[in-house]
């Protein structure tokens, strides 16, 4: 198995773990944690392809990953602000209880 394939498998596994976390946990913040794991797995994919692909001096993969890190940080900030706002109105972060459009 080539080195690139091992990195891609690790990234795929991390993505699946993050997806499982986002889909099965009750707490809204843990869903966001799952989403962050998925974004990180995609970053690993990008850097691995940059390293082992042709023309690494074009820096495409590295740039993509750096911008992805910046965007993920912004998204985490807004998402957590939303969770705090929801907590303030519903007094819970349990997603199974936030199941009505009202409120």
């Amino acid at each position: 198995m080539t080195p690139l394939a091992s990195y891609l498998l690790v990234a795929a596994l991390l993505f699946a773990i993050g997806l499982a976390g986002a889909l099965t946990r009750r707490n809204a913040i843990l869903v966001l944690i799952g989403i962050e794991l998925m974004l990180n797995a995609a970053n690993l994919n990008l850097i691995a392809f940059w390293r082992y692909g042709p023309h690494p001096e074009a820096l495409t993969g590295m740039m993509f990953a750096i911008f992805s890190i910046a965007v993920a940080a912004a998204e985490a900030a807004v998402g957590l602000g939303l969770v705090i706002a929801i907590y303030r109105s519903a007094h819970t972060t349990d997603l199974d209880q936030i199941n009505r459009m009202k409120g």
Partner: protein
Amino acid sequence: MSIAFYPLAVLTLAGGLGAVLLKNTVHCALALSVAFAGLALLFLTLDAQFAGFAQILVYVGAVAILVVFAILLTKGSETPESGIFSHTWFVGLIIAAGVFAVLGWAVLQSVNALPNESAVPAITVHDIGNALVGRYVLPLEIVALLLTAATIGAVIVALHEKEGAK
């Protein structure tokens, strides 16, 4: 591929598993930081030093702290009374397993067709800087705008409303 890949991969996956399986939310956030650190080290084994250090600076130094603050502000550190997994957990697990199966199959099928350059890319921070203000200046400016909008948005969304608060 360096010998450090296997322990680092195990560390990252263990951190990821901890982040989604642990009962205490703060422990999940700390396991997430371990996963981030493991990923940064994996970036270093891939000769992407700038991305690795930026990962630690942004994710461990900022996103992990954000998550921890959000957990503390929403009383997430108390153990919930009705279990930590949603009542539809089995379907979620099946979907995640399915996604991993598809991705794993795609990778293993195309192992021989994947590129495999072994030469270490001779990239300096100078080149990254040139690329950022040369070829990628438009994405740079857009990301700057996005970060400003996200900062203002996060503050407004989480702001305490003085009047009309229940």
